């Protein structure tokens, strides 16, 4: 039984990591129907920003809490700037182009950003400082769930709730929903669609940056390629849960994480990806729009 609980928590941690990144995919898809393949790179840039800022601050002797908050803020702002710029440069000019064009543009952006960081930061793995300390009160449970796992679980839950509230109850959230339902109609009733889309990218990128900080601190190392690998899995999670749906991204991430963890624990880690992707195929066969996704109606 204890083994089951241990696997459950390692699956939840993995799932929460996927979900943190998947939220950004699903938000952008929900608004403009674009799979933003550069999102993994935004997450990676967030991790690097947090790395640089926290290294500088710890040299200057700031206390740990201040380092976390400042590094998190800096990463969120910097990543948002990247997210905003990527949208303006690579997606906005293609807004009326066929659907495939922005997709290709997104892949191009992803490759560009990876290589840009590769050239600027070398391809070596960098040690990421342990920003989340080992809490004393976690010590009795540490063999099941560590402090950083716990923080990731809590933050992912908070973000999901916060995002849902933002979309349901705020002005910008209402505008986002309107834009997602019918962009032209939203424009006609006076919503500044460009600004709504920019806001979506900014929020999504900020989330990715916070994810970058937490996950890098959990793993302890970063390089230019982390965004690509994590991005693929997060994208899978978003599709599994129903891309476009915010609770769906979290549900998809958790299901993917649990599947991998239990496959490793009870079968063999050689087959974790086999199980994860078989599950994806099965779910898409029976529910093509994902677990919580809305069936897309062809607008004529």
């Amino acid at each position, binding site marked *: 039984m204890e083994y089951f609980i241990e696997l459950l928590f*390692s699956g939840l941690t993995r799932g929460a990591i996927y979900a943190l990144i998947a939220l950004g995919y699903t938000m952008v898809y929900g608004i403009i129907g674009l799979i933003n393949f550069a999102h993994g790179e935004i997450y990676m840039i967030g991790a690097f920003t947090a790395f640089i800022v926290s290294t500088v601050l710890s040299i200057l002797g700031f206390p740990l809490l201040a380092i976390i908050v400042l590094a998190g803020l800096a990463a969120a702002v910097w990543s948002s700037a990247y997210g905003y710029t990527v949208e303006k440069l690579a997606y906005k000019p293609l807004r009326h182009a066929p659907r495939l064009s922005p997709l290709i543009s997104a892949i191009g952006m992803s490759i560009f950003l990876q290589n840009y960081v590769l050239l600027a930061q070398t391809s070596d*793995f960098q040690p990421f400082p342990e920003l989340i300390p080992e809490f004393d009160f976690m010590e009795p449970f540490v063999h099941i769930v560590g402090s950083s796992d716990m923080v990731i679980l809590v933050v992912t839950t908070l973000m999901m709730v916060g995002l849902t509230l933002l979309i349901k109850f705020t002005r910008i959230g209402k505008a986002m929903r309107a834009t997602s339902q019918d962009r032209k109609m939203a424009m006609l009733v006076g919503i500044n669609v460009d600004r709504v889309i920019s806001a979506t990218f900014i929020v999504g990128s900020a989330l990715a940056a916070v994810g970058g900080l937490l996950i890098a601190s959990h*793993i302890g190392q970063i390089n230019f390629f982390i965004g690509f690998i994590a991005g693929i899995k997060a994208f899978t999670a978003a599709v599994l849960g129903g891309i476009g749906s915010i609770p769906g991204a979290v549900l998809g991430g958790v299901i993917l994480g649990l599947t991998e963890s239990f496959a490793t624990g009870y079968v063999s*880690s050689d087959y*974790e990806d086999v199980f994860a992707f078989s599950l994806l195929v099965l779910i898409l066969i029976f529910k093509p729009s994902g677990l919580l996704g809305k069936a897309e109606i062809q607008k004529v």
Partner: protein
Amino acid sequence: MKSIIVKKLLAATVGLSLAIPTMAIAADDTIKLGVAGAHSGDLASYGLPTVNAAKLVVADVNARGGINGKQVELLVEDDVCKPEVATNTATKLVSSGVHVVLGHICSGATKAALPIYKNAGVIVMSPSATNPELTQSGDYPNFFRTIASDDAQAKTQVDFALDNRNLKKIAVIHDKGDYGKGLAEFAKQFIEKSGNAEVVLFEGVTPGAVDYSAVVQKIKRSGADGVIYGGYHPEASKIVTQMRKKRIDIDFISGDGVKDDTFIKVAGKSAEGVYATGAKDNSSNPLYTAAIEAHKKTYGEDPGAFFDSAHAAAAALLNAVEKAGSTDTAAITNALQANDVATTVGNIHFDERGDAVGVGFAVYQVQNGQYVEVK
């Protein structure tokens, strides 16, 4: 430019192979050292350093008055690293009366050529053929080598785990890649063969995954008292860090893919106490530095691949001929196995299978942020 070099090399090879028979006839009373390997084609860069090494050793020996009063003569033959060519190369060397052979370079070519030398009673020593079967099959009592075989690293790890650390239950983890999985499979075989310990877990992990805690929990549940990991440092540092975070303080033994300073930098305090095998360090060996200097002086550049093991092999062969006092196969074999000889790869002799004892891998441990050799 490249084609000119290739042409010059070809011309040199052809020139040499033409020159040798006439020389052989002229001077009958010499020790004939054959040098066979890839001297042209794609893999020439693996074979030519051996020729240079042999020339340096032979020049040195001849300057000292030769062996037992006889001068040493080089017979250089190209096998282009191809098994079908290597049989011709071997036949040619045997028919020109070669006494001992330094070569071949590639494992496949070596394997093809060995039966011919075996029938002729010629001792062969390779500086670079690492295929485990060449010595372990027992088919070629005339074969020796000065390089560790492919499985030597796994052997070093398992010996260390069983003898020094007294581990009884070992979890073998790998990264599913050619290098990591190969190493892990050899380690598993050696543990099972020893009978003193058991493999309680044999698993591959996905490189680049965000979290390895599930596999870490599985290691804990298996009751292992040590982990042998085949793979590279990014995954190793994640696994070690998560093991230590879950308070699993068992031995972690890995290979030269982890014996890298980046591992220590990234894993930080979790790296402390981790064991890794790595190639033995020759740089403090005066013979090694002298051989490199001699190469620079003669050829004006740094030596290439397998130069040090080739230099050692040539020296060991000629030393054995000298000790044996004849070119008799059994006498040379005895001399190779019985006498320690100081070479560029350290003091070596050969075991009954033909592998050099004293070359290969050493075990290192991370102590205070540095890899330190475990004596």
